[in-house]
């Protein structure tokens, strides 16, 4: 550290002594800086900016199965893909389902991970590393394998969940077979699958909250709940914002779970926007309209994230 600072001081001193060379030196330093960031910028350009721009162009064409055979069959059709999309009831159904997943799933998963983190952070809990592993294990297990397992758990006649329900005298639920229960069933699985990751983030930030704050609050007579709302929550507010943004983005991109568990059924009740895009793009091979779906989804996620940021700013979660 001292070396660097010394060098910087030396460079600045030299520059001050010889003002004539100052612009040239700055330009050289700028060039060097560009040289250092160039690899990253090139990678972002080639693997992100160019494909996104290409997809935007693609969404303005009718690229389809005929175009696959011969590129001359592509037509530029302006915003027609978007118009048709907004006139398609299945697309709005997919938007509604995705919205439901996000509205129910984000608070549920954040609550679950925060609760797990707070419990694990408590001094009284024994075997903490073991619990951490158990809670985190679902997140690192293969999605398809766990989805198949949950299909068994949710089975109408042989599943352990229905066995528990019927052992308390209620009638069994056809979880994945009815449009009204398919989203809650998949949500249970998704929350179980992802809460471990957010838990880890919360756990890390909880450990940075100084103990003396809690002590002071306790001396002032604050109970467990008061300490949580007045010490813990303000301390982790920026993290809460981060986690909620990540969660919203990931719930908007829900795809593999319905794909493995229900294939979008029953009665298209679990078709999410991404699943809809997959069918447009790879089942019917309408890459133009699939790209349009991708852009609509992007705009939706962006809008929700901006709203979240605005709300968080008003509540003082960050500067």
């Amino acid at each position: 550290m001292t070396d660097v600072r010394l060098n910087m001081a030396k460079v600045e001193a030299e520059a001050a002594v010889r003002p004539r060379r100052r612009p040239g030196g700055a330009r050289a330093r700028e060039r060097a800086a560009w040289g250092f960031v160039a690899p990253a910028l090139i990678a972002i350009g080639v693997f992100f900016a160019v494909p996104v721009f290409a997809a935007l162009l693609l969404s303005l064409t009718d690229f389809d199965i005929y175009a696959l055979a011969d590129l001359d069959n592509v037509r530029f059709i302006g915003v027609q893909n978007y118009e048709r999309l907004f006139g398609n009831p299945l697309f709005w159904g997919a938007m509604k389902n995705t919205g439901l997943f996000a509205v129910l799933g984000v608070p549920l998963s954040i609550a679950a991970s925060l609760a797990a983190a707070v419990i694990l952070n408590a001094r009284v809990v024994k075997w903490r590393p073991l619990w951490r592993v158990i809670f985190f294990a679902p997140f690192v297990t293969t999605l398809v394998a766990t989805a198949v397992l949950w299909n068994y758990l949710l089975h109408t006649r042989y599943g352990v969940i229905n066995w528990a329900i019927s052992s308390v005298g209620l009638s069994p639920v056809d979880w994945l077979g009815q449009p009204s229960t398919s989203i809650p069933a998949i949500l249970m699985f998704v929350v179980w699958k992802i809460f471990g990751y957010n838990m880890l983030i919360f756990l890390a930030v909880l450990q940075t909250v100084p103990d003396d704050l809690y002590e002071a609050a306790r001396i002032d007579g604050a109970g467990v709940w008061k300490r949580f709302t007045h010490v813990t929550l303000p301390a982790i507010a920026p993290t809460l914002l981060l986690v909620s943004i990540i969660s919203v983005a990931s719930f908007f991109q829900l795809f593999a779970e319905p794909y493995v568990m229900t294939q979008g059924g029953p009665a298209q009740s679990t078709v999410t926007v991404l699943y809809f895009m997959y069918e447009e793009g790879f089942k019917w091979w309408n890459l133009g309209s699939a790209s349009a779906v991708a852009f609509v989804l992007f705009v939706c996620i962006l809008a929700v994230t901006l709203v979240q940021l605005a709300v968080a700013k008003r509540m003082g979660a960050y500067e």
Partner: protein
Amino acid sequence: MSVIRPDRRAALGLLAGAAASGLAGCGRRDDGVLRLTFWAMGNEATNVPLLLPEFERLNPGIKVDVQALPWSAAHQKLLTAYAGDSLPDLSQVGNTWVSEMAAIGAISALPDFASDLLTDQFDAVLETNRIDGRVVGVPWYVDTRLIFYRSDLLEQAGYGAVPPTWAGWKQAMLAVKRVVGSDKYAVLLPLNEFEQLLTFGLQGDQSLLREQATRGNFSSPSFVAALAFYKSLFDEGLAPVASAAQISNVWTEFARGWFSFYFSGPWTIGDFRNRLGPETRWMTSGVPGPDGMGASAPGGSSLVVYSSSPRQEAAWTLVRYLSDPAVQARFNVVTGNLPARQSAWSAQAVANDPYIAAFKGQLARAEAVPKVPEWERIVTEMQIVAERMVRGEYTPEAAGAEIDRRADRLLEKRRWMMERGRA
């Protein structure tokens, strides 16, 4: 045909294959053995390897590598493989996909030396494999849908067999409904399946698409009559307003008499045989039509050779072997699939099955569906409209017009292509 003109696609495919595995792509290795990659689906993929040792004995220079695809993902995988230049040498393809694969130029036309494979076939099935006058796929096994019915309940209602016309059939359904009681139904027509309505529609004298298959023809009098017949079965309480997902299992409900007529294909024979008790008597019958026994859509799979394959001759040799009536009869014993070659039907196991007899008649009456790549989407839309019609949103005439409107939109690109002389 045996000399392959090197083109971009073949070269890329070869490169991709070579890069990917170093084995599959470069078929001719030092030992002089040709390795064919053959994609098959589901049950066929499981069982076709049983037939191959014999083929490899007869053709010592060729080895076949069977790769299995699940049916649910097969269609996507074929198109993706085409886009990525990594198609196999040959594959099984659902009959209704042939037009699509041909439209993108993925499959080779039947070479002259294999033209004898087209004899001894069912006309309608062969027709689905003929694109612009050229045959591009060889039917491997066939199926079609017909009616499975409770012969015991029909007898109680006073009928010895399914009447051959819609009107007579409906009278029989009403009689069955009187026997089983008002809480039960006569026929199962799941609202999320297009096959039943499509069958009624195919039986009319008007084709389903018009103007060289560039516009829908669903408001023709014959299709509107089919829509009206379909709707009346629900309106008169003969069919439950339900989708397939709401029927937990078909054979239990069939045994209980919840419905007595069921539309399905040959795969249901095995199911019913294994699951229905001996006290439940059932039979198969051809589908009634507007005036006399009617048509249904031919199904099943064809074998196609991809134009990207540098091993055309060997691939067609395998197609020839799998189309041999004796081999097909053996395949029928293993899988239960109905053979595409008519002479294979005289084999003992096929000829002696009472449930299969009706299929032969129905296949002879089968009618090919329009061969446009958009067809699957069109019938999907057709059924969405039909479900709304059944739920009271449309009259049959209005439903026909609505299906036309949706079909015309799906076919817009095709019209543009036809105008420019590309399709």
